[in-house]
């Protein structure tokens, strides 16, 4: 019998191209790491579903066993787990996030991505 929490997570990542499980919301992040990833996605003009794990303890724990990843935030693109704050930051600065979004057919602002890299030298 599938765990209902995992089933809910699966549904969210099936129904949305980009999903960010985070503490707080895109407009009101409540953790530095979540805020950074949400900020990167928003700045890059990516449409994404933000899921506030603080609203549901079962979800907050369930997401960790779902992906075998111990921390929040967690980014998913086309149903695939991409990483947490470190990995998304590294991928943004290296250009790998651009490639992933492009190959996944997710719209984003290329100039904005380039500006992030310029700003971070």
């Amino acid at each position, binding site marked *: 019998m599938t765990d209902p929490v995992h089933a809910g997570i699966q549904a969210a990542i099936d129904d949305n191209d980009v999903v960010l499980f985070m503490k707080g919301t895109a407009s009101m992040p409540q953790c530095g790491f979540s805020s950074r990833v949400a900020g990167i996605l928003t700045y890059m003009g990516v449409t994404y579903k933000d899921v506030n794990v603080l609203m549901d303890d079962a979800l907050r724990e369930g997401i960790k066993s779902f992906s075998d990843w111990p921390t929040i935030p967690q980014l998913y693109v086309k149903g695939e787990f991409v990483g*947490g704050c470190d990995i998304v930051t590294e991928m943004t600065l290296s250009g790998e996030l651009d490639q992933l979004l492009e190959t996944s057919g997710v719209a984003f602002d290329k100039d904005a991505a380039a500006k992030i890299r310029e700003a971070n030298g």
Partner: protein
Amino acid sequence: MAMAASDIEHLIKEALPDAKVEISDLAGDGDHYAATVVSEQFRGKNRVQQHQMVYAALKGRMGGELHALALQTSAPE
């Protein structure tokens, strides 16, 4: 609840004996660290898998006792 850098290094090396580990304390509170881990066992694995190997080495402390660990992982050049 916090962890000493030496404990983190010890746990990682227990699981990855060949690893070169550098740890810096980001906030001086024993709760926010950055670590660079280089190990041959990472070769051929993607970043998520490499980080999962380090989290496994920390035996469940990541996200609990250890609030933040900014990880940089790679196989030797």
